[in-house]
């Protein structure tokens, strides 16, 4: 009896397996299938609804295409696995630091000709286009940009007496002469941190990221602002690592000083989520963040959006001021056919991510803003990837309609970003950030003995061997 049951179970299993194989073999008609990597994760129900709407209207207009969701959150360590196994979606998002690596490994496709065909090439922001260009060929379409700046908890600043409140209940970030009351130098940041630590229990001045390459990423901006002109130098055709220049050492010394005075936490494995985790749980008053991520404390921690200010990166040496500038491009799998890539680019239009301002695109752009509004997210100006007149006019007008924050708290950032923006270092950025992470971690975990000069010299040597791989 038992045996019979076993046999029948085995047979059913086998049968289902065979059926599954056959089902998979069946081609989905003659349609060109486009897998979309930026499809929202399953948990983002509202986003998926909007994407489904875009998919439906796209497939109605172009019946020869089929959009297939393939949610993929890019990360530098999964892309190798995905690409080597031929599982990259037709189109997906990455960061501006990544295309060079993806191009060398031949994982993403050259779309220059299609861009010309669509008439999009000249409408692209040139700095952003640069980030996705190699040997004069373009490999991606920028979605948006971000600049690093300083996130402030205004409620704390007010309680500390750093800023005032007007009669309308709004914070006043400037004195009578119009000079900013928020920290503009790292010395200011330290001064405010001292006040924070004295006033609040279990709270620090700011959070320093130090893990998963995020420490090095933010640190490179700090190093620039302490006077390091670049962390990678072209020395007569050969790239030299410059991680231990004076500016970089000064920046790390500043972190060490903050740590020794207990103005920052000893936590040495803070990665990207930890800036908003600390801001959200009010264990810090300040954090360095990207302008594209400011809504995270609000959506994930119910942080009051009216208590947020976002100001330009402070300077370290009183002279240098840069804002690390990066962004998100859409790139296309090199395994995809020209037809698929073309379809994927057309779909970008239906997502409102193209320079076009016809009915389809404007509706999609509105959808995007409505979605953000419905989530109660702070809606801020964005850094635009397209620079053609009609796009800018429309996008700016739309934004003005949806922006729901007090722009006084953001205006300095957005007015300076155009002039102080600085692209990330050119080669093997993620590796460089990794070695910098180590130096920062040492400073945080051994403040009594850490020697910034020596640590950065070690990191410099390690990174030089990586740069030596450049032909």
């Amino acid at each position, binding site marked *: 009896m038992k045996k019979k049951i076993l046999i029948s179970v085995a047979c059913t299993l086998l049968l289902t397996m065979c059926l599954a194989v056959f089902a998979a073999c069946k081609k989905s008609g003659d349609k060109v299938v486009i897998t979309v990597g930026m499809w929202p994760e399953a948990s983002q129900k509202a986003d998926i609804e909007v994407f489904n709407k875009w998919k439906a209207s796209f497939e109605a207009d172009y019946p020869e295409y089929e959009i297939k969701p393939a949610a993929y959150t890019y990360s*530098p*360590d*999964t892309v*190798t*696995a995905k690409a*080597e196994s031929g599982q990259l979606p037709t189109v997906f998002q990455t960061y501006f630091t990544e295309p060079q*690596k993806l191009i060398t*490994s*031949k994982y993403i496709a050259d779309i220059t000709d299609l861009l010309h065909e669509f008439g999009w090439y000249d409408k692209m922001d040139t700095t952003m286009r640069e980030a996705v260009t190699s040997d004069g060929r373009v490999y991606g379409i920028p979605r948006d940009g971000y600049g690093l700046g300083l996130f402030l908890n205004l409620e704390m600043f007010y309680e500390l007496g750093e800023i005032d409140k007007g009669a309308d209940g709004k914070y006043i970030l400037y004195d009578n002469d119009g000079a900013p009351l928020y920290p503009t130098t790292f010395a200011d940041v330290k001064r405010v941190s001292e006040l924070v630590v004295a006033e609040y*229990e*279990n709270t620090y001045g700011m959070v320093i990221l*130090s*893990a*998963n390459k995020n420490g090095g990423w933010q640190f490179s901006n700090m190093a620039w602002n302490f006077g390091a002109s670049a962390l990678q130098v072209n020395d007569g055709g050969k790239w030299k690592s410059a991680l231990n220049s004076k500016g970089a050492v000064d920046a790390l010394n500043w972190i060490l000083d903050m740590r020794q005075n207990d103005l920052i*936490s*000893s*936590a*040495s*494995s*803070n*990665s990207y989520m930890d800036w908003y985790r600390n801001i959200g749980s009010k*264990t810090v008053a300040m954090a360095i963040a990207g302008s594209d991520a400011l809504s995270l404390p609000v959506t994930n921690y119910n942080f009051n959006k009216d208590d947020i200010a976002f100001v330009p990166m402070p300077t370290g040496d009183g002279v240098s001021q840069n804002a690390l500038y990066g962004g998100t491009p859409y790139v296309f799998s090199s395994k995809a056919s020209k037809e698929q890539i073309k379809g994927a680019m057309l779909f970008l239009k239906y997502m409102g991510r193209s320079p076009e301002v016809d009915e389809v695109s404007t509706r999609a752009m509105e959808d995007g803003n409505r979605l953000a509004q419905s989530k109660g997210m702070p809606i801020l100006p964005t850094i635009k990837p397209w620079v053609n007149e009609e796009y800018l006019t429309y996008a700016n007008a739309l934004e003005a309609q949806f922006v729901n924050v007090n722009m006084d708290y953001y205006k300095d950032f957005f007015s300076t970003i155009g002039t102080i923006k600085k692209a990330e270092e050119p080669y093997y950025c*993620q*590796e460089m950030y*990794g070695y910098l*992470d*180590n*130096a920062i*971690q*040492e400073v*945080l*975990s*051994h403040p009594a003995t850490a020697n910034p000069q020596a640590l950065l010299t*070690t990191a410099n040597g*390690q990174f030089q*061997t*990586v740069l030596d791989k450049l032909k």
Partner: protein
Amino acid sequence: MKKEEASEKLIDRSALSYKALTTVKKNWGGWLIMLPGIILFAFFVWIPLITNIKLSFQETVGFTGSGFVGFDNYIRVMDNPIFWKALTNTFKYAFWSVIIGFLVPIVLGLFLSEVVHFKGLFRVGIYFPAIISGIAVVIMWTYIFNPNPGAVMNVLLGVFGIAPSSFLSSQEMVIPLIVITMTWKGAGATALIYLSALQNIGDAQYEAARIDGANALQRIRYVTLPHIWPTVKMLFILQIISIFQIFYEPLVMTGGGGPNGASVSLLLLSYQYAFEMGDASASAAVGVILSLIIIVLTVVYLKPKGITNFLGKIKNGIVKAVKKCK
């Protein structure tokens, strides 16, 4: 003369082929049964191992090897201070997991076998962590070891008047804490294995020892330990194997082996070389070094007699294989 020689050879050859035929006839069934297992071992263990050795001497583009570069990859890997950290960390992991991970279950197992009250509660309770998937355990403990002075563990320490600790952000504490996490998950299940070995010891043996005048400690020394020794040995090997497989614990708990490489393991380093830095040949070199360490340890563990047996087995195998080829 020549003719005779030729015919002799002819006979010889036919005899040989006859012999081969009977060997095949006698063995084909066994070979067929061996085949699936051998294929799997070849595919998942032997071929990757050999390819990895080859790859470690090559230059790589993506995951594909090209020209041979001698020991360059090894030199590059060893030039990187992080490698030496990973190597010393491996021994730190081994040390702590013998101290904590290996001894705790033995003690728990002994206690479980002695106790007559609440037996069921103790067994189920102690086994409970084993049912939680590894990654959930690791993330949970990362949150518990939150270094903020206002977070749970520090508040708890504060109750006992202990100053807040930075836990996983401390280079000295990170490895013991990771081992504690692993032990928390694994100790209960292991203790139950010891328990069953202990339950196999008959009352009569303890009785005999008692009659011989053995006190409690002597009974443990002369009755208990010898009986559970095979289990101890087996679980010791498993413990050692698990040390060399430490990978996602530091990946998750310390954001990839921090602070400053204080918790990075060789396997994690090998993974990071391949999948984060795109340096497959360095990854292979680390993998080969890791394998060499394990082989040396295995040989030491097998001890002299074991080694001769072991080498003898390999020699016999090879001699036979060579003979067969003739």
